């Protein structure tokens, strides 16, 4: 049993195989994302009762928290793919890492803005320099830096390797930033302590959140598959399998 897993993975690393594999799965992932998202939003916006402290404003949680978790999940995926790309020089790993960055940046941006919109009515301020918010902002800079560095090179594969290196440096750096800002914040005790008490969240409020978390994961998969497929076409432009696809699509 153990043998066919590495073989399947190895085959998947080949661009035309992955192109077909991703092409088959992508519509299903997108459909699941939309379905689960719709269910989650109905549960969160309509069914869940208003919070006795925060009123209806708490409903921002259904997009804020899943986006925050996605920003970190994508960042971890980007880091792992970058490591594989640098150590084993697998083209597909490079593409996955580079195409994850814009999606990660999108979710990080959503996290920051929705958090700000939630913070204003709840804490009375659009922004505060606590460890979590500052680390998330640094994460956005990290994603933007990876995207910028990738596009600064003429040779895309070289750019991908340089940006992968930056991504790995970032992985070491974000916990450091989080710790140092935490230290700095406790030094200046004047700032508001922001703790959203999530210990006792009711079931009716929880299940839409978890459903949305799942929905965003499927969305990431769908978006990533789409982006990786396009990138593979661009990278492998000279090969026969790409030429066939280009000719097929011309007839449509």
């Amino acid at each position: 049993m153990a043998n066919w897993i590495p073989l399947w993975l190895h085959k998947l690393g080949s661009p035309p195989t992955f192109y077909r594999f991703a092409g088959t799965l992508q519509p299903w992932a997108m459909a699941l994302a939309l379905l689960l998202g719709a269910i989650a939003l109905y549960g969160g916006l309509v069914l869940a009762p208003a919070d006795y402290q925060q009123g209806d404003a708490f409903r921002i949680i259904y997009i804020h928290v899943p986006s925050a978790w996605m920003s970190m999940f994508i960042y971890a995926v980007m880091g792992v793919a970058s490591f594989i790309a640098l150590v084993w020089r697998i083209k597909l790993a490079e593409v996955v890492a580079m195409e994850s960055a814009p999606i990660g940046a999108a979710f990080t941006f959503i996290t920051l803005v929705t958090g700000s919109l939630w913070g204003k009515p709840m804490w009375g301020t659009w922004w505060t320099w606590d460890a979590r918010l500052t680390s998330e902002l640094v994460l956005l800079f990290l994603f933007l830096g990876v995207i910028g560095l990738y596009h600064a090179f003429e040779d895309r594969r070289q750019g991908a390797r340089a940006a992968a290196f930056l991504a790995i440096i970032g992985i070491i750096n974000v916990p450091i930033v989080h710790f140092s800002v935490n230290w700095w914040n406790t030094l200046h005790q004047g700032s508001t302590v922001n703790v959203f008490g999530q210990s006792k969240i009711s079931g009716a409020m929880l299940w839409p959140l978890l459903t949305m978390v799942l929905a965003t994961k499927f969305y990431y998969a769908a978006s990533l598959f789409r982006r990786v497929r396009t990138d593979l076409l661009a990278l492998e432009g000279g090969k026969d399998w790409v030429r066939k696809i280009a000719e097929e699509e011309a007839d449509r």
Partner: protein
Amino acid sequence: MSALQHFFAMGGYAAYVWPAYALFFIVLIADTIAPRVRRQHVLRELRARLARQQVRQGRAGSISTPTPPSP
């Protein structure tokens, strides 16, 4: 207030909740559309390049000295 109006009012927090949701959808829709646009662009460019190659090869076939296919 009707139930629908109540829903849109979001307990008075509408000015915060709805822009947040709008942003969520706008960003993700942009993220969905951008790769599709890029794909059309890549394929269009690829077809143009192939057409140019074929023209060059066709021209080469009609001259006596064989020309190697361009990269």
